[in-house]
């Protein structure tokens, strides 16, 4: 049961976090290869599969409380405006309307660190103006139409470049540059590095804003019972949301229970408390009835997060032998109207070996919905620029792009100046190149004859995703042998329920279906962090193993007491404990509990500490094979090979699925997805799933997934690195390089749409 509290530092989505955390100090050594394991790593079917395919899974959007009411939100139609007056009198007369909230009758609850729950200064299209709660959704919608708002329209700016101009409208008094200055990084001497170079290339690349668009709306269903508030929330972070609710409503955290059994996707957009939750809670408290609140699809595309865009100017210097001497990266991107992170220079800082690096990232405020973390913040955009220009430098040096990357292989983490716990990127390059048939690359680029030209390209990947403490898990064993694992994490569709059951089943040597897993309930679970940063499996799986090992130790101790035999004379196999001194004596784990006074035996586990002086990162490379129709400009991705070092595979089936998902989202980013704002009106043009193009089942390429790693024993007792974000990071860059290899012309702007291809070819 040994635990202590230590300083813990790990990367979560948009920055390093350092905090104290309770860790387990007596967890066993890491497992060996997956070959030595029975259940972990195997393609076990999701244990929550039944609920999801039967329609019985209850998402926050599905939760029904007796006597429930429905909320709808009135949103600002302008990119920038102030409310001069608001009149709800007519709306209140509608039969069935129960409550209308506006800035005039609602406390000034701080939001975004620089605004309020209802702020009469509206800084983007979709900003909240009023909420109506009514007996039905239709009544609420009717009433919304009757609210009279007089707006003073203000000058707006919806482009990060324009926001930098001196006479640009100010979104905030503090100016349009978030934090007042760029975020910078430097090592070595960039000027010296450029001088040493035999070849220097400079170019500018741009990437678009993309929208998470998870299928389930951002939503909450809230219910007060006396002073206790229960919130069913579509969230990736139950404890974070719980504490934010408590702070916003000024009530104790133990009066707030946040539940998330299932959620219809988040991809980073559901890591924080939504305004809608507080609005529903305020209204529900006032009318004494439960409230369901959900944004609609239009609002999903306006107001609840996006991947910021970027304009990146990159300068790379290299010697004739291919040694990189300098990387200078300068970017700006749009945070939206409130703080977010548009930085995208981590790939330039960390991926390749280079002594002289300088980066600066400007995050700009504009009059549009705020950005939020989106599956590997900054990385798909950063790699698109970095690996595009890197290929151009390789071509100039007449080097093979892969050989160029190997020449500049970073053996250590140059930013932290310390070794990695493991890095199998060479193996990943090698296997991936073999699988795609790297030798089939067109030499020179664009050399296919005929209208349809094909090509092959690749890009690298680095991410954190080692997780870390705190993460806790509890196991309860009943007298009938049934087991329950409880953890304060959440399954966001990634298979968390299932790997937790597998890890517990592996240790206790019982069938997976004997284990029930309870997640996503702040009232009952040991703390785990938000599901982001590819940290869930690497943080939580070791805690589950720790708890299971402790349960096993208790059971052995119990059997020792029954047999009156020392523990070291007992053996544990398939959930049965046998006395080695008299092998006719054995007890099943349920029998041990039945001999105890406890009707439920409980063991608690925690994740151990990360190793001191090492960086934990995942690595990989993706290789794309594309065809470009040079008459229509249409790009078709034929095949992608993903070859990665991600530590241990917990579940082959869910791993493949999550990789497919990341790669297909990466394909959407490369070729079709884009939020479009009309600069003249400041209004978003892509507010539905027809205009906002996402990949369908018809757009998918063949995909092959190669995992070159089998557990990293230095990280934790399970040796797992996260996979959610690595999967999407190199995809767009690999496709872009393949397009270059096919047509011999560089497309420097995502998405690579037919018009851009035709312009590049003939423009």
């Amino acid at each position: 049961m040994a635990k202590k509290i230590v300083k813990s530092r790990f990367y979560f989505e948009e920055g390093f976090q350092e905090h104290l955390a309770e860790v387990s100090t007596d967890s066993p050594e890491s497992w060996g290869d997956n070959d030595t394991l029975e259940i972990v790593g195997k393609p076990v079917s999701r244990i929550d599969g039944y609920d999801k395919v039967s329609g019985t899974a209850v998402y926050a959007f599905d939760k029904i409380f007796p006597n429930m009411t429905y909320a709808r939100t009135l949103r600002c139609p302008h990119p920038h405006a102030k409310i001069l007056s608001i009149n709800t009198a007519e709306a209140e007369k509608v039969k069935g309307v129960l409550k209308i909230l506006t800035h005039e009758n609602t406390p000034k609850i701080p939001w975004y660190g620089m605004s309020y729950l209802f702020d009469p200064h509206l800084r983007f299209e979709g900003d909240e103006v009023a909420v109506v709660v009514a007996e039905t959704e239709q009544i609420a919608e009717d009433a919304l139409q009757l609210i009279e708002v007089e707006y003073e329209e203000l000058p707006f700016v919806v482009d990060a470049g324009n926001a930098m101009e001196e006479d640009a409208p100010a979104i905030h008094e503090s100016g349009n540059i978030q934090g007042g200055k760029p975020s910078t990084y430097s090592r070595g001497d960039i000027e010296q590095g450029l001088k040493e170079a035999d070849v220097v290339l400079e170019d500018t690349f741009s990437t678009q804003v993309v929208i998470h668009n998870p299928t389930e709306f951002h939503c909450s269903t809230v219910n007060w019972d006396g002073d206790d508030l229960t919130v069913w929330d579509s969230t990736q972070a139950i404890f974070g949301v719980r504490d934010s609710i408590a702070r916003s409503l000024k009530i104790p955290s133990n009066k707030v229970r946040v539940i998330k059994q299932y959620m219809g996707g988040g991809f980073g957009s559901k890591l924080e408390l939504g305004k809608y939750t507080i609005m529903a809670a305020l209204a529900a408290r006032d009318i004494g009835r439960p409230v369901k609140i959900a944004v609609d699809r239009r609002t999903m595309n306006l107001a609840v997060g996006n991947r910021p865009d970027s304009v990146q100017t990159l300068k790379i210097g290299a010697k004739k032998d291919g040694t990189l001497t300098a990387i200078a990266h300068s970017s700006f991107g749009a945070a939206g109207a409130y703080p977010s992170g548009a930085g995208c220079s981590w790939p330039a800082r960390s991926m390749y070996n280079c002594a002289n690096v300088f980066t600066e990232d400007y995050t700009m405020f504009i009059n549009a919905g705020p950005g939020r973390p989106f599956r590997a913040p900054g990385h798909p955009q950063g790699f698109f620029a970095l690996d595009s220009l890197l290929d151009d430098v390789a071509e100039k040096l007449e080097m093979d792009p892969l050989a160029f990357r190997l020449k500049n292989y970073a053996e250590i983490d140059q930013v932290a100046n310390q070794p990695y716990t493991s890095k199998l990127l060479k193996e990943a390059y090698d296997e991936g190149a073999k699988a795609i048939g790297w030798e089939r690359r067109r030499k020179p680029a664009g050399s296919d004859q005929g209208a349809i030209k094909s090509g092959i390209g690749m890009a690298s990947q680095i991410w954190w995703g080692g997780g870390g403490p705190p993460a806790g898990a509890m196991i309860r064993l009943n007298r009938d042998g049934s087991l329950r694992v409880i953890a304060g994490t959440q399954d966001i569709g990634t298979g968390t329920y299932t790997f937790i059951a597998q890890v517990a089943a592996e240790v206790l040597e019982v069938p997976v279906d004997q284990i029930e897993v309870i997640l996503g309930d702040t009232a009952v679970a040991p703390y785990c962090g938000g599901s982001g940063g590819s940290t869930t499996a690497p943080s939580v799986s070791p805690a589950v193993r720790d708890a299971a090992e402790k349960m096993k130790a208790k059971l052995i101790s119990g059997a020792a007491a029954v047999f009156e035999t020392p523990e070291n004379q007992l053996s544990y196999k398939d959930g049965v404990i046998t006395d080695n001194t008299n092998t006719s004596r054995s007890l099943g784990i349920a029998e041990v509990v039945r001999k105890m006074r406890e009707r439920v035996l409980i063991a608690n586990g925690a994740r151990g500490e990360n190793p001191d002086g090492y960086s934990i990162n995942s690595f990989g490379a993706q290789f794309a094979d594309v065809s470009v129709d040079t008459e229509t400009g249409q790009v078709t991705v034929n095949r992608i090979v993903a070859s990665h070092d991600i530590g241990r595979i917990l579940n082959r089936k869910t791993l493949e699925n999550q990789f497919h998902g990341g790669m297909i989202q990466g394909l959407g980013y490369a070729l079709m997805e884009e939020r479009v704002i009309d600069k003249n009106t400041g209004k978003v043009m892509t507010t539905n799933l027809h205009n906002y193009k996402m990949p369908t089942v018809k757009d998918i390429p063949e995909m092959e997934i190669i995992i070159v790693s089998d557990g990293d024993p230095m990280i934790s007792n399970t040796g797992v690195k996260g996979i959610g974000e690595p999967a999407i990071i190199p995809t767009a860059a690999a496709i872009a390089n393949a397009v270059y290899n096919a047509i011999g012309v560089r497309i420097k702007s995502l998405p690579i749409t037919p018009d851009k291809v035709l312009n590049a070819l003939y423009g």
Partner: protein
Amino acid sequence: MGENGSSNGISRRKFLKGFGTGVVGSSMVLNSLGAATKEEKEQMREYLQNAEPLTLTVNRRKHRLMVEARTTLAEVLRNYLQLTGTKIVCNQGECGGCTVLLDGKAVYSCHLLALDAAGKSVTTIEGLLTGEDLHPLQDAFVEKDGLQCGFCTPGQIMAAKELLAKNPRPTRKEIQHGMAGNICRCAAYPKIIESVEYAAGMGNSQ
């Protein structure tokens, strides 16, 4: 919070007096058991202006309801009949999340007025179950992991149901064509295709 904005929670108790007097969602269903009280029915009529009677069969069970003309089939299924397996994702017929069978034909229930389903037979994801047992097609989606978050899954399965009814042994291309109206943002597409292939291969997907 209004006048009672002290937010210490104590003032909240008085609001609870009103609890339980409103119209519960399910009482909008005038089922044959006549569960709604007279008072509730009157309240409902008052709220639902221009409500019209609707009879339809959902998962082999007949329902009589009062709905406003603008109410969609998806809203009736979710809010009136509490069949929340049917999801609303785009709410304008672009993504297939709300797919159900109407007299055996796959339709977007968010895009269909409930009154247009009058007299017809609706099958939702819940209707594929036999008791608590999964339909082989549902089994296939578990076995082949044709889902991640699961939110679009009911729609995917209902689309596959119609596809296999029309074409019991579809090619991969035919599956892609048949399922193209259903968006999965997690992009579990390769395994959705595998699931449909697996169900077709089992030959008992009807």
